[in-house]
C-alpha cells in the first residue's frame, strides 16, 4: 500500500484502535426529499461537532459542504463515486415521486475527482443476488475504481449489498461473505457492509474479509438503543466500526448520536451506561388508547415472565375493547387496562387478605379462601386467578414486562405521583 493511501486510511480509522465512526449523509440523490436531506448543512455541522471520524457525501454536496470539513480535527471526507436506484425499487422505496422497477447502477465520478475534493476515500456498491450480467458489470466497475485508487493513493471502500431476488434468509450470510471476498479480491481497502443481525454470523464475515469492516445500520428504528446495540455487537464481532446514515441523520440530536457511537466504538462503553434506563422510585403504569393496536404482546409477555406459559388468561394487564353492538362497528379500538389501586378489591375482600403497599396490591396468602370476589369485583378486570389464588400486578419488580414488550409505547411507566413518562 503506498504512503498516500496509508495516510488516508488512518485519517479515517483512528490509529489507536483501528476503528471508525462514519456517518453517511449521501442520501439526497437517491431518496426522497426528507428532512435529513433538506437540512443537510445543519446536520453535517452537528456530525462534525459530535466528533465523527468520517463523513460520506455525494459529489455535489462535497463541493458545497466541503468547507465544513476544514480543520485539523474534522472528519475525513468519503465521496460516493457511483449512483444507483435501489432505494426507489419496491419494498425499500421511501415513498418518492418515481418508483423504478429495475436495478440500475453506474459510476458518476472518478477517484481523481474525489481526491481533488480532498477526500480520503471513495465508496462504491457491489450488488449481489441479481442476475449474472448485473453482477459482472458491477464488479468491473469496482475493479476499475480499485485500480484508480491504487494509482493515486485513495482508499477504496466497497459496499456489498445482498438485496437481489436470489437472496433469502438461508443464504444471506453466505452471499454477503462471498461479496466481501469478491470486493477484497478486486482491491477493496475497506468494506461497508450490512450487519448480519447477530455477533456470530458477523464474526464469520469479518474473519473472511481480511480488511477493516464497517457495519451498516439500515432504517432508523424508533427505539434509540437499537442502533447502539447493533454497533456494540458489530465491534464485539471484530468489526472496525460503523457507517450509519439514517440512524444519525434522522435522529433528533445527531451530534449526541455521534457522541454515543464514539463512546461505544472508541471508548468501549456499554450501551447500558450510555442509555441507562431510568428507574423511577415507585412506579405506576399508564395505558394510551390512541397508540394501542390490540396486539396483546403486553398480555402475552406478562403471562410469560410470571411463568404462566404466555396465556393471557393469567395476565394482569388487559387490553379492553368495547364489544361492538352493530355489524358496522366490526372493528374496534383498544385500551390497555391495568391496576390503578382503586382499592375496590381491598374493600370487597371478605377475609381482609389484601392491602396496598409500594404501588401494588399484596395478598396475604394464608387469609385467602379463593372466593374469587376480588376478581369479579375489579372494575377493570385486571385480576387474574390460578391455582386457587388471585394474581395481582407486581410491576415486575420495577421493570414492567408489558412496557418493555409494547411495540407502540401504548403502555408506559411513570413515577408514582407525577414525573415524566419513560417507555
Amino acid at each position, binding site marked *: 500500500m503506498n504512503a498516500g493511501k496509508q495516510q488516508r486510511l488512518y485519517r479515517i480509522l483512528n490509529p489507536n484502535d483501528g476503528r471508525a465512526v462514519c456517518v453517511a449523509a449521501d442520501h439526497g440523490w437517491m431518496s426522497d426529499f426528507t428532512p435529513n436531506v433538506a437540512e443537510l448543512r445543519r446536520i453535517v455541522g452537528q456530525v462534525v461537532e459530535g466528533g465523527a471520524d468520517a463523513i460520506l457525501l455525494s459529489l455535489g454536496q462535497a463541493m458545497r459542504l466541503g468547507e465544513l470539513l476544514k480543520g485539523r480535527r474534522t472528519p475525513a471526507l468519503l465521496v460516493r463515486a457511483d449512483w444507483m436506484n435501489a432505494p426507489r425499487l419496491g419494498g425499500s422505496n421511501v415513498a418518492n415521486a418515481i418508483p423504478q*422497477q429495475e436495478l440500475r447502477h453506474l459510476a458518476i465520478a472518478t477517484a481523481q475527482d474525489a481526491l481533488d475534493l480532498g477526500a480520503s476515500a471513495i465508496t462504491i456498491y457491489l450488488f449481489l443476488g441479481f442476475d449474472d450480467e448485473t453482477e459482472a458489470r458491477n464488479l468491473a466497475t469496482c475493479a476499475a475504481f480499485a485500480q484508480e485508487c491504487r494509482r493515486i493513493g485513495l482508499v477504496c471502500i466497497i459496499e456489498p449489498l445482498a438485496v437481489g431476488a*436470489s437472496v433469502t434468509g438461508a443464504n444471506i450470510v453466505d452471499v454477503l461473505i462471498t461479496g466481501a471476498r469478491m470486493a477484497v479480491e478486486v482491491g477493496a481497502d475497506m468494506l461497508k457492509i450490512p450487519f448480519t443481525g447477530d455477533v456470530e454470523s458477523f464474526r464469520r464475515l469479518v474473519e473472511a474479509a481480511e480488511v477493516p469492516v464497517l457495519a451498516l445500520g439500515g*432504517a432508523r428504528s424508533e427505539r434509540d438503543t437499537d442502533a447502539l446495540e447493533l454497533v456494540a455487537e458489530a465491534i464485539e464481532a471484530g468489526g472496525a466500526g460503523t457507517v450509519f446514515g439514517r440512524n444519525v441523520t434522522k435522529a433528533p440530536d445527531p451530534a449526541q448520536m455521534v457522541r454515543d457511537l464514539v463512546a461505544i466504538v472508541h471508548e468501549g462503553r456499554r450501551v447500558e451506561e450510555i442509555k441507562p434506563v431510568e428507574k423511577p422510585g415507585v412506579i405506576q403504569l399508564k395505558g394510551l388508547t390512541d397508540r394501542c393496536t390490540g*396486539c396483546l404482546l403486553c398480555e402475552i409477555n406478562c403471562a410469560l415472565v410470571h411463568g404462566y406459559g404466555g396465556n393471557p*388468561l393469567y395476565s394482569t394487564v388487559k387490553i379492553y375493547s368495547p364489544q361492538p353492538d352493530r355489524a358496522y362497528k*366490526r372493528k374496534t379500538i383498544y385500551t390497555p387496562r391495568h391496576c390503578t389501586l382503586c382499592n375496590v378489591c381491598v374493600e370487597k375482600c371478605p377475609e381482609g387478605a389484601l392491602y396496598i403497599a409500594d404501588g401494588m396490591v399484596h395478598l396475604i396468602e394464608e387469609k385467602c379462601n379463593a372466593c374469587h370476589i376480588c376478581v369479579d369485583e375489579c372494575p377493570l378486570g385486571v385480576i387474574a386467578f390460578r391455582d386457587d389464588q388471585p394474581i395481582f400486578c407486581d410491576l415486575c419488580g420495577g421493570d414492567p414486562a408489558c412496557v418493555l414488550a409494547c*411495540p407502540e409505547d401504548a403502555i408506559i411507566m411513570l413515577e408514582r405521583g407525577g414525573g415524566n413518562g419513560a417507555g
Partner: protein
Amino acid sequence: MALANRSYAGQVLFVHLDPFEARVEPLREDVAELLLGGRGIATWLWYHHQPPGADPLGPDNRLIFGSGPLTGTPAPTSGRFALVTKSPVSGGILDSYSGGPFGQALKFAGYDFVVISGIAAQPSILVIRDEAISLEPAGDYWGRSTSHTERGLKATYGAHAEVVSIGPAGEWGSWLSGVVSRERIAARGGSGAVMGSKRLKAVVAAGTGGVQVHDPDGFAEGLRLALRALRMSSPIDRMGKHGTTNILELIDVAGALPTRNFQQGQFEDAEKLYGERWRAEVWSQDVACWGCPIHCSKIAKRDGYMLDGPDYETIYSLGTTCGIGDKWAIVEANHICDEYGLDTISAGNVIGFVMELYQRGYVTAADLDGIVPEWGDAAAMLALLGKIARGEGIGRLMGLGAREMSRHYPGSEAFAMQVKGLEMPAYHPNAAKGTALAYAVSERGACHLHGAPLVELLGGANPLTEDGKPEIFRIHQSEAAVIDSAVLCFFTSYGMTLKELWQLLVPATGWDYPEPRALEHLGQRISTLARLCNNREGLTRADDTLPKRALAEPMADGPAQGHVVRLEPMIDEYYRLMGWDANGEPTADCLHSYQLDGLLNGHVVR
C-alpha cells in the same frame, strides 16, 4: 424431551361429528422434527387420515385446524393459525392461514391440531375447552354473520374463548367462502364450503394451559434479534403505515396491476388508491393481529362506521380488476365479504370476469338478474357480490368460481383468470414471470403466498424475463413453507429472514437444525409432501398451467407490452430443481433425500 417442553402442546385431537366422538393422540416427535408444525404437520396428518378421492363436501374430507411451535409465544406475528383440507375448487390439498388468536386458544387447550371428520346431523358448534369437547346446536347462529356469531359465542364461553366461524356464504356452499377469525379470514380455496358441508357453523376453543419453550434464554435472545430486525426495516415501516397498500403504486408502475379482468396492467385511477390517499381519506387507526408489531391492518372510519380498512389484494379484486377506484365502495364490499365469510380475492376476480363476459356479449343483464355490470360501476359490483354472498340467482353460479362459470360460456375459459380453479391474485402474470410460474405450480392454485417471488416486482430481479425464475421461486417457496409451518405471518419476511426465524425456532423446539439452510431443506420437504398429496388426488402436470390470456395474449400496453408467459421451460426447470420427474412427480430418490419415504411408511430412516 417431551414435546410439551419443546413449545408444542404435544397432542392431536380427532373429532368425528356424527356419531360424535372425540379422541386424543400424542403428536409424534419424529414428525414434529421433520415437518416442524403448522402446514408441515397438518399436511402429513391429512396425507395419513384422508381417504384418497374423498368428496370435498362429503363426510370423509378432513378439516384440520392447527398451529406451530411459535404459536403462543411472544414471537412476532405468532397470532396465526393454519387450516388444511381438500379443496372443492381444485380437488387437491388446500392449506390456508389466518391471523387471529384461534391457534393459541387451541394450543392453550392442549392441542396442536384438531382433525374434524364427518357431517353433523344438524347445524352445530364444536366447543373445545381443555379436555371438555362437545358439539352444541348452532341454533340461531346458522344464517347469521360471522361477527354476530363471534360476539355471541364469546359472550357465552368467555372473553378468552376464541372463535372461528363461517358466514352464510359458507353455509350455502360457495367455493369462494372461507373461515373467519375476528377481522381476518382463512379465505382461499373454499374452506368455508367444507365447513358448511359439515354443518359446522363455528369452532370455539379456550384453554388454561401455556407454552413452554425448550431454551428460554436462547429464545429471548432470538426474540430480541428478530424484533430489532423488524424495527430497523424500512419495508416493515411502510407496511405499518400504509398496510399492504404500500405496494400498489409500485405494482402499477411495473404494469402488473390487474385492471378490468387482466386486460390491462395499469389502472388509470391508481393514484386514488395509493396508500397515502387511504391514510388521508379513509383510515383512522392501525390495528394488529395478536402478537404482531407490524400492525398492517387499518380501521376505515366514517359516520360511526368502523370497518376493516381493505388490503392491497382486496383493492385489486373489488377495485381495479372491476375498473373501480371508489375507496368507500371497496370498503363496503370488503365488509360484506367479512360478514358473509367470502374470500375477497376470488369474489372480486369472479365479478371482474362477469364484467368481461358482459363486455364481450356472452351475457346480458337478463342473465344477471337484471344487473348491468359495466366496468367501474360500483353499485353493480356490490349487487353481484350480494348475490354471491346470499347464494341467490346468478350468485349461485358465480359463487362456484370463474372456472366453473366459464364452463357455461365456451370460449370464455381464455380469460377466466384462475389456475386449478383458484382465482388469481393481484399481480398480472404477463408482467411478472416468476409469479406466473408460482401461479401455475402452487399446490392450491393461483396463489401469491406460496413462494411467488413478488420481489421481482419490487426491484429484486427483472420481472419480464423467465430466466432464473424457477430457482428464485424454489427458494422463496421453501421459505414460505417454513413460515407457514412455524406459523408466522408472511409479512415478517419483509424485515426478518429465515435466519432470524431459525434463531427463534431452534431455542423454541430444541430440534437439531444446524443452520438456516436446514430449514430451507425442511421447507422443500413440505412442498414435496404437498405435491404427493395432489398427485394422489389425480392432479398432474396438465394442471400446472395458466389461462390463455397469460400464455397467448400479449399485453396491449404498459411496461409489459407484448409479453406473454413462456411457461413450459420454467416448469421443466422447476421440476428438475425439485428432483421431480418430467410429469411433476417426486422420484424415489427425491423422497429418500427428504426422508419422506420413511415418514410416509410410518417410520423415519436417518
